[in-house]
């Protein structure tokens, strides 16, 4: 497997892990306002770094697949810009809610923020799923039908599975009681079934890739099982295992579907950068990635471990 692809997909996995956790926290807020403070404590320091990871992925993609940019830029202009505008609103309203001393206004702003976040999530999933399946995409004319890309069965199923994963994660993360402890288990199992079945139906190469990459799926399933069992047993560290599971399951999905794009019509490898630039990009990734890991360690210690 190509090293640049692995790095790029790992960055995407890191972004999606954090973003799905954010979506999950939104669900918790919608389920019961009683979790307001817990959700607020979780998301307040995190929304900025999540946005930064999105940019990290975008620029890493530009650095990894420059010859795809013309194609991507032309096709995804509408969906991409729409996602960008809603992303600004997401940032604006989370900030307005945080800086507001009036709790009623805080909650109103937070609700708007949640709607914006869910719209961004839907648009991001649409771009991702259409790049995988090619549904709504016409590579010959370098065009896309945004409505078809958004409202086709594969994209809808994909979005539902993302929502289920977010729900599962958030139940474990915040110790949500509504519906009982079985909810995250059912949500995770359903998400697996939907992703695998829909991928087999709509990604023509997926079954073949899955047969050679079965071990990747098994690793992901084992981590999910450990996370959920420890959760059912009431172990507090289960939320960390679920976080690792989320990251691994996204990353493993990327490894399984490698190297195909647009329903198997194109391959990632045909868009790779020249070797000289790829070398420098890998240097920067190694140094920058180490620094970011260090920063995040300080960040998590000060924000989530250290007490006042």
């Amino acid at each position, binding site marked *: 497997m190509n090293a640049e692809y692995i790095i790029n997909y790992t960055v995407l996995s890191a972004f999606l892990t954090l973003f799905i956790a954010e979506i999950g926290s939104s669900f918790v807020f919608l389920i019961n306002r009683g979790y307001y403070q817990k959700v607020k404590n979780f998301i307040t320091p995190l929304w900025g770094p999540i946005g*930064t990871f999105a940019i990290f992925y975008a620029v890493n993609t530009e650095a990894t697949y420059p010859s795809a940019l013309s194609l991507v830029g032309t096709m995804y202009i509408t969906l991409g810009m729409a996602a960008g505008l809603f992303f600004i*609103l997401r940032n604006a309203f989370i900030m307005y809610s*945080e800086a507001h*001393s009036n709790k009623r206004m805080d909650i109103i702003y937070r609700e708007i923020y949640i709607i914006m976040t869910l719209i961004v999530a839907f648009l991001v999933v649409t771009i991702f799923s259409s790049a995988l399946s090619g549904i709504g995409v016409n590579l010959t004319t370098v065009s896309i039908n945004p409505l078809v890309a958004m409202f086709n069965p594969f994209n809808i199923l994909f979005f539902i599975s993302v929502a289920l994963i977010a729900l599962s994660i958030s139940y474990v993360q915040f110790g949500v009681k509504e519906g009982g402890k079985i909810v995250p288990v059912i949500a995770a199992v359903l998400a697996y079934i939907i992703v695998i079945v829909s991928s087999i139906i709509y990604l023509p190469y997926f079954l073949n890739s899955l047969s050679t990459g079965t071990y990747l799926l098994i690793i992901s399933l084992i981590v999910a099982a450990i996370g959920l069992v420890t959760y059912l047993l009431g172990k507090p560290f289960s939320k960390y295992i679920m976080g690792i599971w989320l990251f691994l399951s996204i990353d493993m999905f990327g490894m399984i579907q490698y190297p195909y794009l647009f329903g198997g019509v194109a391959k990632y490898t045909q868009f790779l950068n020249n070797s000289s630039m790829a070398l420098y990009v890998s240097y*920067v990734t190694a140094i920058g990635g180490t*620094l970011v890991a260090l*920063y995040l360690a300080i960040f998590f210690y*000060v*924000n989530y471990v250290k007490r006042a």
Partner: protein
Amino acid sequence: MISPILLDRATMGFSLAVHIFLVSFGISLPVVIGASEFIGIRYGDKYYKALARRLTTALLIFFAIGTASGTVVALELLLLWPKFMALVGSVDILPLYIEVFAFFTEAIFLATYAYSWDKIRNQYYHFLLIIPIMLGSIGSGILITLLNSFMNTPAGFNISEYLSSGTITGVNPIAALFPPSAIYEDSHGVGGTILAGLVMVMAYFVYKQYKSSGEACNYYKKATKLLLGISSVIAAFVIYTGVYSIEMLYYVQPEKYAAFEGDIVPTTHAAEMLFGLFINGKWTDYISIPNLQSFLATGSASGLVPGLSQFPTYTWPPLFVHDMFDFMVLLGFLLGIILLITDLVLIIGKYSNRFGKVAIIGRISKWDVWHSKWTVVFAALSGALALVLMEVGWVMEELGRQPWIIYGVMLVSQAGNVSTSILPIMIAIIVFYAAILPFTLIYINRHFRAKPVEAELQ
């Protein structure tokens, strides 16, 4: 039917204008916050400590909106200029890529700094957290300007091979990262952005101190003095780098230099031409200072300066950039004078007992500068000048490279997205910014009103 390329340009130009405005606060506030927190801890000054906290909230809000608008600009680069980004991705992606890590530094440490005031007992440790925020925000500015330098003076790949065959060969990412115009463009561009943010915030504080009394008035006075001190140092730096930039343009970007100076043909003993109208191939209605341009550019009154006639007519930038250039220098001069006079008045006021016997100084020292309407007027003027200078500076910088997006390599018309779906996107972006920008400013104002300074000083 409007050309899609024109829409690309208008959308990008509008978004950048808004983004630069937001960024000027994001890049300058960490400097002020760091300075005020340090002074607050070092001298146990409650006013400076409160200032650091209060400005951190403002920084968070500007960061939130600025980050998001930066994301939109990044998306626009990709979506509106796909062919440009395809070339940049192969040759000069490092500035953008390293900038991501600078941005991470800023985002992660800001999230840590802003929410840990009461968690970290040793105040100096908390102060240390602002340093990576400063480095990250200024570093982001430097790196993104490096990409603009590449657009002005491309380097790091075989240009002739690219122009003849369209293939990218001989890529040297480090040479592309530091193109010939990097140092002067970065130093002046980033310095100017920091200055603009500082002066706009200072104008706000001057107004607030004029309107307030008691503890709040003292607080705003201290804030203004701090901002004035930092602004004056940065202004001196920006003036120096501005002069240096023009000198370097002469050597590195002669076509742009000629357009800025309005030089049509190469000339010795060139006069400095101020303003003017270009009619029927000739400049009219300008002010001329003999030999000055040659002297400033070459150090000799008889030095040779380049002219646009050395370049094909189709590559000439629009000649009104000459008037924009003069306008910018004039405004910069005005801003510098206002800052200098304000510095002098405050210094004289502080040391009036030493110099009070000198008549003019005695009169100045008796002037209650803090409660004069003129102070507010000049502060507002300075803020407006700083903003206009920054925006006009960038517009001029970009127009001076037209019709190229990458000088001598790729035309704007070759790089743009010709999709017809751009018009609704452009309208959406304009409507969107038109709503969110004033809302944010009103929100910040209301937020601070709801939390009076006096309460924070307690």
